[in-house]
Structure formats: C-alpha cells, structure tokens
C-alpha cells in the first residue's frame, strides 16, 4: 500500500511532484508577478491610504471628544461651585431676614407689652380704689350697726347709754 500512492501520484503528475515540474514555472511566475503588481497597486493607491485616513480620522475624533469631555467636566465643576456659592448666599440671606424679622417682632412685642402693663396697672389702681371705698363704706356701716346694737343692749341691761363712751369702745374694738 505504501507503494501505491507514490506510483499513482507519479503517474498522475508525469514526473513526481508537480512542484518540481519546471515546465509550469514560467506560467506561475508570470501570473504571480501580475498578481503582486495588481495587489500592490490596489493597496498603495486605494486601500492603505484609505484605511490610514480612517484611522487618523478616528484618532482625531477620539482626541477631540476627550478634549470636549474635559472642557464640559470643567464647566460642570464651575457650575457646581457657582451653585454652592449661590446656595450659601441664599442661606445667609435667609438667616439675616429671619433675624431681622425676629428683632422687629420683639420690638413690637415689647411696646405692646408695656402698653398692656400700663393699662393693667391703671385698672388695678382703679379697682383697688374702688375696693378701698367699698371697704370704708362697709366699716362705717358696721360701726353704725355696732353703735346702735350696743346702745340697745346697754339700755336693755338697764344701763344708761352714753353715746360717746360707746363710740369710743367700738372704735377701740374695731381697731383691735
């Protein structure tokens, strides 16, 4: 079996390996040169410059995009800082307004409180006066009743009522 393929191959190709059949060499070499020249021309004129330009363009696009992204990032950071600053300012402003309003309210409140205190004090004084009058009235009445009652009791006990003595005694008791 080992012989069979070799013989068969040899028969088929005439003189052993087709690679060593020199009669076909000019043909192969001619067509190879044609092919290489065609490929070289296609590549160097069309394909390679085109691919190179596409790659360069892509590189440029990427570089530009990265630069643009960098710039946008910077701008975003600036905007963020400005926003923070605005926020701080607004907070300070708000705090100031709150403080002002509080002070204002306090001042008004104080004024009102004083007014109210004064009114209350006036009313209290009036009331006290009224009470004192009522009290004085009441004392007088008690004195009169006590005088009359004492005179009557003394008379009933058979004594002689001395108006002046009774009045003095009652006054003394009332004080006590």
């Amino acid at each position, binding site marked *: 079996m080992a012989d069979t393929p070799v013989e068969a*191959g040899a028969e088929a190709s005439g003189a052993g390996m087709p690679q060593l059949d020199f009669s076909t060499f000019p043909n192969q070499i001619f067509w190879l040169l044609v092919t*290489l020249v065609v490929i070289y021309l296609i590549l*160097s004129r069309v394909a390679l410059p085109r691919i190179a330009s596409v790659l360069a363009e892509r590189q440029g696009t990427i570089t530009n995009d990265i630069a643009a992204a960098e710039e946008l990032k910077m701008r975003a950071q600036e905007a963020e800082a400005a926003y923070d600053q605005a926020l701080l300012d607004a907070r300070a402003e708000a705090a100031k307004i709150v403080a002002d309003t509080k002070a204002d309210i306090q001042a008004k409140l104080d004024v009102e409180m004083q007014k109210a205190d004064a009114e209350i004090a006036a009313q209290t004084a009036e009331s006290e006066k009224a009470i004192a009058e009522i009290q004085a009235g009441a004392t007088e009445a008690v004195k009169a009743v006590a005088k009359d009652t004492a005179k009557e009791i003394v008379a009933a006990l058979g004594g002689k009522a001395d108006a002046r003595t009774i009045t003095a005694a009652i006054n003394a008791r009332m004080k006590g």
Partner: protein
Amino acid sequence: MADPVDGGGLSFKPLDQFEVKRLFGEGPIEWYTITNVTMWMAIAVACIVLLLVIGTSKRAVVPNRTQSVAETLYGFVYTMVEDVTGKDGIKYFPYIFTLFIFILFSNFLGLLPMSFTTTSHIAVTAILAFAVFFTVTIIGFVKNGAAFLGLFWVSSAPLALRPILAVIEVISYFVRPVSHSIRLAGNLMAGHAVLKVFAGFAQVGLIIAPVAILGVVAIYALEVLVSAIQAYVFTILTCVYLKDALHPSH
C-alpha cells in the same frame, strides 16, 4: 503493509491537487496560458479587493465588521513593521503588506475543498523570497554603501573568530531566501498532502473511516492555524531582513 481490504477501489493521489492545469482547451502550458494558478490568484485578488477596498468604502469612523477586519490586518502588519524595522521601515509597509495579504489569502483559499494552493508551489514562494532577498540587499547597499558589509563582520566577537563568523554569516545570508521559500511551500504542501492521504483512508472500511475523518478534521484545523502562522512568519522574517538592511550593525 498488506493490501487494503477493498483493494481495487482505493486510490491515493495526494499530489494531484498541486497540478498546474490549463483552464481552457488543450496543449502545452506557456508562460501566458490561463491556468488554475491564474484563476486562484485572481480569486485572491478579488477577495483582497472585497475586504480592503469594498469593505472600507464607507470610511466609517465607527467601523462595521468588514472594515474592522481590514483595519485589524492593517494595524497588525503596521505594528509589526514599526516594531521590527523601526520608523524608517514604515515606507516599505505597502510592499510588506502586499506580501502578507497575498500569502494569507492564498493560504486560506487553498483550504477550500477542490481549490488550488498557489503558495504550495516552490516556484511562487521562491519568487516571493528572492524578491525579498534582492530588495533587501539592494536597500542595504543603497542606504549604507559598503558599511552594509558590516552585517557580516561581527564586531562584538573576538578578533580571531571574526573571519570564521563572517563566512558563516555570509552563508546564512544566502541561505535565507531558500529557507524563506521552502518553509512556506513545504508547510502548505505537506499539510495538504496529509489531508488528502487521510481523505483517502476515509474510503477504507467501517473502522478506519471514522478515524480518518476525525484525522481530516484535526489536520484541517491545524492547517487553518498553519496558514495564518506561515503568512505571519514570512512577513516577520521579511521585516527582520529589512531591519538588517536598514541597520546592519549588530
């Protein structure tokens, strides 16, 4: 080995696939004859145009798949040329890319069933390798003048050893195109022949056939790898030789 069980029907013709044939008519193969070599090289050119010209025609900043593949290949070879030869090698990039893309597509097209592998022929790879050899040698002398011969004079070695090393360097320099071409053609030819042998065994019996088919699948996978690697190896060696020509000092 004993005769196969079904003797008569079994035939191995692993080398038939490498035959150069006329596409039209009968007669001898002249240099201008349109052969299967012509056809498969034309198909390679068509595929290259499809990928690198039609595929990139939109010039999209965000590439589609085809353009992406084209750009990846471009970037791959460009980086290789730049890394190996340095900045001054960049102007030879179209030349190197031509070699790379031609070998890559020829190798892969050769993996299609019933196809013809142009790069499995020593005639083709030898021309590629000698083209590189002469180009690189001419560039070396044009750029460096006689200083290019410094490539063979290992100044870092002891003085007594230098003449011997120079002889070895000269021999290795002239062997370069041979190894460069035979490596590519040999790899592809061997792989395709082995595929065909396994395919032949697939005709034999119930037990051997499945094993042979598995073998075909495995070898095919290996060949896909080899196709890409050999294109890469050929290209990077071209870059290395070019670097020697541009910077001959060790």
